[in-house]
């Protein structure tokens, strides 16, 4: 595929436009939430939740819904998992990293078994839900609308509770001592993360989606010294990397997810090197 192919054929243009819209919105949300997650040492929570997302896809397949029609099922399942992870950690039953590892690997194991039962054998469905689609994904009208609504909701809630999120991210103990609703804030962040992961999984694949949470935040933290700027830069870097990675994938005939992440990795590496040079 070349650039002129993308822009001349109306069918291709439509597909590309949808993927770009959903992808940019998801990248933006993931990066913004990612700053809080990385700073609180919860980088792996995105990874845990995306594996639960894979499990949810297998349930959708078993119910005959197919992987294209799965958001209604995956969103509640992944939100529930986010809630469970938070409670496990808060109650001290398990440490955060152990809880994430248990939920994440357990979900993949059960998911693969369900997929295999549902479809008789390991199929390309498993492969595409783990690694993202091998070509540009066809997103339905419903996917498009749902992901726009979800992204607007995520950004709006984040802005409304920005001060609370900052305070809890910087110092949970202080916030709790002066009566801030810390549990609510933690719940908010995990539910929003769950939503973003599920929406983004289709494009990037469940194994790699958490990179969108982690890389832009790390890059932004190299570049800025205030929280507001880190959030802004992370969002911008994430959207730019997605667009670059997406087109690179289209032109080279490579899957979207890995390309986007390789671009993110390169940008981070460049920033790290430049800073060291200073």
């Amino acid at each position: 595929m070349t650039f002129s192919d993308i822009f001349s054929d109306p069918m291709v243009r439509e597909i590309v436009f949808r993927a770009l819209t959903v992808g940019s919105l998801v990248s933006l949300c993931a990066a913004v939430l990612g700053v809080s997650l990385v700073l609180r040492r919860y980088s792996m929570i995105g990874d845990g939740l995306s594996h639960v997302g894979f499990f949810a896809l297998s349930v959708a397949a078993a119910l005959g819904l197919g992987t294209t029609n799965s958001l209604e099922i995956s969103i509640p399942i992944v939100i529930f998992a986010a809630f469970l992870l938070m409670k496990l950690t808060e109650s001290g039953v398990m440490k955060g990293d152990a809880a994430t590892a248990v939920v994440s690997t357990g979900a993949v194991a059960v998911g693969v078994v369900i997929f295999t039962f549902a479809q008789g054998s390991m199929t390309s469905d498993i492969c595409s839900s783990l690694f993202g689609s091998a070509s540009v994904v066809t997103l339905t009208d419903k996917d498009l609308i749902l992901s726009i609504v979800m992204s607007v909701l995520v950004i709006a809630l984040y802005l409304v509770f920005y001060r609370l999120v900052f305070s809890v991210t910087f110092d949970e103990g202080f916030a709790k001592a002066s009566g801030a609703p810390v549990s609510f804030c933690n719940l908010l962040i995990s539910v929003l993360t769950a939503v973003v992961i599920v929406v983004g999984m289709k494009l990037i694949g469940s194994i790699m989606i958490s990179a969108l949470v982690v890389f832009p935040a790390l890059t932004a933290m190299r570049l800025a010294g205030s929280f507001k700027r880190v959030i802004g830069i992370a969002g911008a870097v994430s959207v730019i990397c997605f667009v670059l990675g997406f087109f690179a994938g289209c032109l080279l005939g490579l899957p979207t997810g890995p390309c986007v992440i390789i671009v993110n990795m390169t940008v981070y590496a460049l920033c790290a090197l430049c800073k060291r040079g200073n």
Partner: protein
Amino acid sequence: MSRILTCTDLTLSYEKQAVVSELNIHVDEGDCLCILGENGSGKSTLVKALVGLIKPQRGTVIYEGLKRHEIGYLPQQSAAQKDFPASVEEIVLSGTLPRSMGYIKKENRLEAEKNMELLGILPIRKKSFAALSGGQQQRVLLARAFCAAKKLLVLDEPVTGLDPLVSAELYSIIEEKNATEGLTVISVSHAPERACHTASKILHLGGGGAQFFGTADEYLASEIGQKYLCADDHHHHHGERRKVQ
């Protein structure tokens, strides 16, 4: 003076080991309570229980006429905080959050500015917290605690790791707040002599359940107090001698 905080038969445990047992103390408005004791005697655990971060195993902590959002707390710094990308101003402003959850109001900004000025960090308000020295970071966290502390300020080792000059300055600012504004202060301290000068009440948590609670004068006269202060004296002289050599 009216009572604002009472602990009754308070027993606390840390990782399933009882560290504070059967503690009975009370704090009145305008008090300055200093908590002294050796490392591992449960000072931090007690402070966390006082501000509601951990639940008592037995007994109660009761506030009277004191609401959660009137408490300013200065915790010990965590490792994750030291390289946190936030500006000085953002952090100090977060101290006003409990009383205004939504957007930052003008009065919040004014309050943050007042406390930044008090602690001498107004000129570095745009700087990143991660780029500051330990002493400056502690000033920022203290300014934030001041923003939150309408009635009660709870400090967990406010000057650990700071040089003596900065420590003395921070102590003076805190004492000033206590003396002039009537702000109630509860502070874990490593400087017993200074504590005895300024504190209205002293709590000494000793190892093995030994406890003392009373006024500074009573503490100076008590066996536990003399032992501790004497040990501290020794330590200081020893240090000076070493410096001379």
